[in-house]
Structure formats: structure tokens, C-alpha cells
């Protein structure tokens, strides 16, 4: 029986970050991954704008930027697409139907959001403080958070406190006229959430995204696979042991403390510290078992909202893909979300556990292949969507822009499939909805925030913790720091 200082369940990017960090600190770490490859859900991440400077610094990772896709192309049925180009975070219009006033306002809204995100960003990278814990450090952190918001100045602070609870549609409609531009920003606000553009809280998700990715549009500037490779290399360099194609069956405990993990093949590894990269529901209800958790805690675990609603579509076509009215060289992120009403209608279906008849898409094109995020395709309990129908709906949208689509290969990965493959209850991108009641010190829920759990030696390090989803690694890093702190 092998012993480790820390065992990490799941080799998602957060698990890899945590393991690298811990091993750099001289800990003997084991990562157990269910699949053949590490990286987890990052496999489906279309784009990565940047790697957090903190991760870079702590792990010494450096991934080169790829240059080919710093355009954002918002498709319109009338083929008058809007093209935005992003140069080092500076946006400009390449072409658009929107009038000049709208263009100016659009950029100024984004600048405003950036400013607010910067303030929020300061909270993103830290362990969230607890309210009324009686601890001085928490109180100090709370006060400093308040101070940072105050530092925005009267006008901006007022605006921040207003838009934080507002819905994206209202703010855009107050300022813009162009349907296309409104659709574009709404898309970024609602993708991967259980919100529509008219749902309060949909600006907060956008601010969140900006804070985490340092870009509202989260452009594909870094190859995700490359990043994962680097992380894996970093683990290997630091002698982290990674075993793949092995599934953890149970987290072993004794007297409310972790003792190790047991694999499905019966093998047992011992450790006093276990970190779970799995989502909170899987961790608590399946790996740990409700039997050893307090009833109130079980109630909260069950109430955690984690219904995913984005599917991934991969198409291979016979011919090279050309988009109507778009120059061949103009590659980048394509978005089809033409207007608030369209997205809101797509969202309506999601509420009743149906897929959107007219889905929204975000996709990248690479010669003959196309890969897209499709929403809303809600996670279903006890049943599954008819995948061919969904693909058909997507193709009918795409064929508006891609003439003569001859599909050679097609693959749809629904949230249900993501659940199956990665053991993510609900197949949710972020392991759980990003709404105020599931953020910061309330993420995932009371009694489990700040990466710790009711079980001594067990930690959460996945997207179910603060600051949520996205390929940031912050969750893993913060959790690892917490482990180091407790190891002392």
C-alpha cells in the first residue's frame, strides 16, 4: 500500500495546478485520473485568452500565444456580419452595421465592465472571506473588499452596485440600438450559465468572465491542449505521480478524517490529505458518501444547482469551410446569437428541459472542421436528447452561413455525456451555476466554502469552489495553498 502526502482525485486543470504547486513545495503527490488523458473538461474548452499571471509565476509555466484568432465575428442572418478585432485587449470594429454612436457606446460599455471586473478581480484570486466567522482575518478581508469598491469613486461605485443585480438585456437596451451588438454581448454573458439575457444576474456573470479571463470575449489566444501539456510536464518535472485510466470509488475516512482513497479495482492509497477536483455533489454524495455527512449538509449539497446546458458539436466537412461574406483569412471566433430576443427564446426552452429549437452557437473553424459550443442543450435526468435532432437544428443554423455543407463526420457531446465521461453531476461547465447565492463565500455552499469540507483532510479544488469555472487554475492553486497552510 502506497502512502502519499496528498492525493488528488481527478486530473482536471485545477487538479494539475494543485498537484504541481504541492509537489513544488516538496510534497509527495498522487493524481488519479479516470480517463486516459488528463485535462478533464478543458478538453472541451474552445478558447483560452490567457493564463493567470499568478499561475505563471507560481508554476513557472509559459505558453506561447497563437496569433490566428483575435477576431470576433458576430453573424447576422442578412449576412451583414459584425467583425471586431482584439489587439492586446484593445477592441476595434473591422466592419459592422451598427452606427457610429452605437459603436462608441458599445466600446464604452465594455470599458466600464472592464473597470468593474478589475475591482472584482481582486477578490477572484484570493480565498473568499467568511462573514461573521469571528476571525479577524476574514473581517479584515471583508473590509478591504469594501474599500476596493469604494476606491472606484462615487459614480463608478454607484454604477457597479446597480449593475451587479441587473440583467444584461436592460443595460444594453438602455444604451444601444444595434441588435447584433446586443446579441453579441448577451451571448458572452449567458454562455455556460442558467440565465437568459433578461435574467437578473447576467451582468455579474459577464463581469466574472472578464475578471477571470482578462477579456470579455475570452479569445482563443492560447492552445488549451498546450496549456494542459505544460501543466502535465510541470507535474512530471516535480515528480508528481499521475495514474490514468483509474477511477476512485471511495474516499476513505476514519473519525471524520481522511485516510486515503480506494479505486474501483480495489486498490487503496493512503494519505491524510485528499483533494477532490470533482464537483461538490459527486465528491460528497458519491465519493465520500452521505452516510458520514450531517443531514443539514446533505440538504445543502442536494440543493446545489448544477444543471449544465451547453453541448459541444464537432463537424468535419467534405470541403474547406467558407463563411458567407467573410474573407477567408479572417479567422476567429464566430458567434451566432442575433439579438436579445433570439437568445431569450433559446433560453425559454432550457427552462422546461428542452433543447433550443433555434440554438445559439459559438464556433471555430479549422479548414474542414468546425467545433462549436451549442446552447441551450439542458442536462436531462433519467433520459437523453435525440442528438440527431439537435445536430440537425445546428446544421440548419450553420447552413445559413456555410454554403453546401457536406458533413463527413459529426459528433455531439451533450451535458449528459460530459457527466458520464468526467463524472460531473449535471454536466455543468462550471460544476454549478454562477449566481450570487453560489458565489464567493457561498460557493459551493455554507460549510464547504474556502476549499475545506466537514471532513478533516478533505479539500475541494474543482470549479465548484470559488472562483468557479473557466480554465483558470485559481481554484486548484488556492486549495493547494490552503492545504499547505493546514499541513503546518
Amino acid at each position, binding site marked *: 500500500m502506497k502512502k502519499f502526502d496528498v492525493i488528488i482525485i481527478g486530473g482536471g486543470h485545477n487538479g494539475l495546478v494543485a498537484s504541481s504547486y504541492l509537489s513544488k513545495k516538496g510534497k509527495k503527490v498522487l493524481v488519479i485520473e479516470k480517463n486516459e488523458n488528463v485535462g478533464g473538461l478543458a478538453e472541451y474548452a474552445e478558447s483560452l485568452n490567457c493564463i493567470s499571471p499568478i499561475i505563471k509565476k507560481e508554476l513557472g509555466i509559459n505558453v506561447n500565444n497563437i496569433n490566428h484568432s483575435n477576431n470576433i465575428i458576430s453573424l447576422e442572418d442578412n449576412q451583414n456580419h459584425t467583425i471586431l478585432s482584439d489587439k492586446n485587449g484593445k477592441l476595434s470594429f473591422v466592419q459592422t452595421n451598427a452606427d457610429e454612436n452605437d459603436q462608441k457606446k458599445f466600446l464604452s460599455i465594455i470599458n466600464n465592465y472592464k473597470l468593474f471586473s478589475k475591482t472584482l478581480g481582486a477578490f477572484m484570486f484570493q480565498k473568499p472571506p*467568511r*462573514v461573521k466567522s469571528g476571525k479577524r482575518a476574514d473581517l479584515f478581508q471583508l473590509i478591504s473588499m469594501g474599500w476596493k469598491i469604494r476606491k472606484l469613486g462615487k459614480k463608478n461605485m454607484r454604477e457597479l452596485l*446597480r449593475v451587479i443585480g*441587473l440583467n444584461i438585456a436592460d443595460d444594453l437596451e*438602455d444604451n444601444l440600438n444595434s441588435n447584433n451588438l446586443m446579441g453579441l454581448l448577451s451571448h458572452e454573458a449567458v454562455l455556460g450559465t442558467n440565465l437568459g439575457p*433578461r435574467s437578473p*444576474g447576467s451582468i455579474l456573470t459577464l463581469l466574472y468572465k472578464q475578471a477571470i479571463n482578462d477579456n470579455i470575449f475570452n479569445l482563443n489566444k492560447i492552445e488549451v491542449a498546450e496549456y494542459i501539456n505544460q501543466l502535465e510536464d510541470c507535474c512530471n518535472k516535480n515528480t508528481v505521480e499521475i495514474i490514468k485510466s483509474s477511477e476512485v470509488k471511495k474516499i476513505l475516512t476514519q473519525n471524520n478524517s481522511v485516510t486515503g482513497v480506494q479505486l474501483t479495482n480495489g486498490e487503496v492509497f493512503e494519505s491524510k490529505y485528499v483533494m477532490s477536483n470533482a464537483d461538490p455533489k459527486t465528491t460528497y454524495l458519491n465519493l465520500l458518501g452521505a452516510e458520514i455527512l450531517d443531514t443539514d449538509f446533505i440538504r445543502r449539497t442536494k*440543493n446545489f444547482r448544477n444543471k449544465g446546458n451547453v453541448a459541444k458539436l464537432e463537424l468535419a466537412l467534405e470541403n474547406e469551410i467558407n463563411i458567407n461574406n467573410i474573407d477567408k483569412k479572417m479567422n476567429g471566433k464566430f458567434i451566432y446569437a442575433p439579438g436579445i430576443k433570439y437568445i431569450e427564446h433559446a433560453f425559454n426552452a432550457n*427552462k422546461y428541459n428542452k433543447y433550443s429549437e433555434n440554438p445559439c452557437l459559438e464556433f471555430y473553424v479549422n479548414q474542414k472542421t468546425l467545433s462549436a459550443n451549442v446552447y441551450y442543450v439542458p442536462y436531462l435526468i433519467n433520459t437523453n436528447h435525440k442528438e440527431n435532432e439537435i445536430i440537425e437544428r445546428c446544421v440548419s443554423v450553420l447552413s445559413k452561413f456555410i454554403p453546401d455543407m457536406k458533413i463527413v463526420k459529426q459528433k455531439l457531446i451533450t451535458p449528459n455525456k460530459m457527466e458520464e465521461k468526467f463524472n460531473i453531476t449535471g454536466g455543468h461547465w462550471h460544476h454549478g451555476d454562477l449566481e450570487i447565492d453560489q458565489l464567493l463565500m457561498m460557493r459551493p455552499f*455554507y460549510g464547504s466554502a474556502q476549499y475545506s469540507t466537514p471532513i478533516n483532510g478533505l479539500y475541494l479544488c474543482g470549479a465548484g469552489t470559488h472562483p468557479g469555472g473557466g480554465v483558470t487554475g485559481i481554484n486548484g492553486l488556492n486549495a493547494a495553498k490552503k492545504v499547505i497552510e493546514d499541513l503546518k
Partner: protein
Amino acid sequence: MNKTKYDVAIIGGGHNGLTTACYLAKAGLKVIVVERHEYVGGAAVSRELHPGWTYSNCSYVCSLLRPEIFRDLELSKHGLQIIPYEGSASMLNDGRFYAHYQDHDLTYRSIAQFSKKDAEAYDRFGKDVMRQCKIIKPLLKMTPPDPTSFKPKDIMGLFEFAKYFAAKDELGGLGEKEIYDTIRFWTMSVRDYLEEYFESDIVKVHLAGSAIIGTALGPYSPGSAYVLLHHYMGEVDGTVGAWGYSRGGMGSITKAMASSLKSNNGEIKAGSPVSQILIKNNKSYGLVLENGDEIYADKIVSNLDVKRTFLKVVEEKELPSDFYKAVKNFKIRGSSGKLNIALDDLPIWKSIPVGDPAGTGDLHITQNIEEMEGAYDDWKDGKWSQFPYVDMCIPSINDPTMAPQGKHYMSVFIQYVPYNLANGGWTEEKRLEFGKHVMNRIGNYSTNFNDIINHAEIRTPKEIEAEVGLTEGNIFQGELTMDQLMFNRPVPGYAQYKTPIKNLYMCGSSTHPGGGVMGAPGVNAAREILKDLKMKISTHYI
């Protein structure tokens, strides 16, 4: 021309305007209320719109009216009486009905028919909501501190606020968990919130009704649970969350207030629409009526909603541009309709037996939360709901003054109805079609309803706006969403009943704590005005 100079002139004789007026008059100020109609009351009126019948034609039930105001203004002496509900019910399509009664054990058994677990969970839900009501109660009375201000009073206010939550024994010792519960309740969707307690559709939808009444939110919209709280935080004789009828209709409340005002030498000038507020050097000093008369006063208070105040009776040039823009972007959406129906007989329901107390309170026919959300989806597209949520009640069963003997008055509140109808907007035909649609829906649940309709007044948000003056016909004078609550209501930086114009105040439901026949904005405004005059308010309220 009226040459008398007043201490205070109040534009609009709604319940909040009258409340402010009463408190100021009680403090000895010379007060005049200027009202557009020949009658006062705003949205809290009783009107004989069909001979023999009295309609509570806008607001129709009472719970939120603060008992302290009732007491301070001696409204009982001035003729007001509140009759508590005996029960409430949702009728199911399968011929059963789900009911709440005054009797706790009976309610338990009623819920247990659908789910034993839910019947038990109802107590836990009630306790948790009651705790939130207790937490919010002192906040209603508070002038929201401005978190961006460095003025001592704002810093003290924020400090008090923090102290309130941090206190060890306040509210029975709120812990970390309870504070998070509060944040959750204030931000979650009502559907998610109810899912945490209940499994049965009818239980959830019956309770969710309170969360959508009057708002442009659906039960799936984050923030809707707060609206539920807004409807629960009232009380009838100490029973938090209870609702009641005002004897003689909702107009009795404002009639009593008007009478109380007169007994304190306050004046009411009815039939006098205001066309403009007189402003000079950024100071208001009087009003111009539509007939050209001018009324002068040291302080002007507007009971109109914030949009009507600053977009209609104040000129744009008088206002800072940021403020003007914020007012323009204030969300005040018409989403509710109303039917007032004169009935020749008591409606007989297919499911609820005659005489059952459940049939005398609020009645509903929505079957599940999905149907309720679907009603909202229709509204978002500019259509009236195909399956609207209705809140029906027949006050005449308990209040004989509302209808001739043996006949009845039924009030039907409808959610959702858009202010701007898609495809060409509202026409007279469409209004009638809408009314017919709702009545047909109700008729499905009754054996005689369709045959006993004597008269029906059909009101879309357009009619509510036209009569009461509420912009877009929004019953709360502004959406109750997070971006428009507390220090954000109505506009960030102007949440303390004051405006950018000196001596001009707001006292309507556009201000904290918002809508409902509650009176809290009215008292809070009166307190701020008196404070500025270095006077003290006399009340049981503080």
C-alpha cells in the same frame, strides 16, 4: 389665484402622499395635497363604477400597511377596519383544490393530500420566511444610507446596518448560516427557493404566486424570491404574512387618511392636475396647476413615480444629466391587468364547496410553476399570457358594503399583461378580447360564472396608467429588482427621499422600501423632511 403660502405642498393624494401629509400636518406644518382627480386615493380607491357595486378597482387587498401608521394616524377613528382572510386556494384541473386555512392542522391535512413531506416542510418554510420578515422589518423603516458617501450620517447608517447583522443577540443571534440564508433569499429565483422545500407542483405554484404579482420577473428569474418576501412582510394583527380586506374597499384606507389629515388642519385640493413644479436657482418653490393657478410652498413633495415626476412635471434643463439618464432608465414595467366584475350571484366553483373558508380568500388556477413561467414567456414577447396567473377574490362575501344584497363583487388580478402589445398595440377590441380570454379561463373552474357576470371592468396596464398615473401601469412604481432596491431605489445616490432639486422630495413607492399599500415610503419621507426642518416626527414607527 391662490395666494396662500404653504409649508408643504404634496403632489398626488395616493396613500403615501396622504401618509406624508398626515405626519407633516401632525407636526404642525401647513400642508396641502394637490390631487388630479376629484377623489383622493391613487391606486387605493373604492369606486362605484357600476351602479350598486363598489370596486377596489386597483389595489384590492391589504397586508403591508404598517400597523404603526394605522395607530399614529388614528385610522380606526376615521373609519378604517381590516378583515383578515379566512383562507386561500388553488383549484386543480382534476377537480380537487389545494387550500390554506387559518387553522394550522387543517392546512397541514390539506397539503398532506398532495404530499406529506410538503405538509411538514411548510412549517419549516414558514419559519424561515418569518425569520427573513423579522430581519427586513427594521430595514423598511430605515432611510437607506448611501454607501458611496463619506457624510457622517451615511457612514453611521452603514455602520448601524453592519452592526445589525453582526449583533450577537439581535434577531435571536443571527449566525453566519442565517446571514447567507438572507443573501440567498434576496437573490434567488422563487422556483429554486421553493424547490429546496417542496416536491409537489401545486404547493410550489400556490406559494410562488406572491413572488410574481406586479413584477416583470418570472418564477425562474433570480431575485423573484425577494418579491415573495415583499408580499409576506406585511401583517394583520401580528400574524406576519397574513392578508386582509379593507372594509368598504381599499378606498377606505385613503378615505381614513384624508379624514385624519383634515382633522390635523391639512388641506386637500382635488380636481387639480399639476402641470409643472416651479424651480428657480435649483430650488423648488411652488406648483403650477393645469388651469394656470399657482400654489407656493417651502417644500414640495412628489407622490408621483420617479419617471412621472422628473420626465413630466420637472423640466429636463433643471436636472443633472446623469440623474436625468438614470431616471429615464428606471425600470417601471407594466405587467399586470385587473378585472373588476359585478356578479349577480355567488360563483360556484367546481372544486371548492360553498361556505368553505378557502373560497373566501385569494383563489388561483395556475397548475404548476412551468405554466406560470410560460405566462411570463408570453409577456416577454409582448403578448398577454395565454395561461395567465390570476389572483381572484370576492370581498363581498365578508364585506356587505361592496355589492347589493345577494350579489357579489369579484376582483381579478392578472399577471402577465404587457403595456405595449406586440403587433399593433392595444385597441378597444383587443382589450375586450383580453378580458374575455381571462373570464373564459376562470369560467372553466366554475359552474355558473359565465352566466352571472353583470358587468366587467377590464383594465390593462394602459388603463391603470391612465387612471392612476402610474407609469406603464406598474403597481409598485418601479420594479423590485436588486438594481432598484435599498440605496439603489429609485436612483443610486438619491435614495434618501431627496432629489437634485433643493426642497423637492419624493414620497411615493418609487422610493425605499417600494410598492404595496404599505405607507413606509410616506413616513420615511416625512421623517426626512422634518429632519431638514430641524423638527421631530411623532410616531410609534421608529
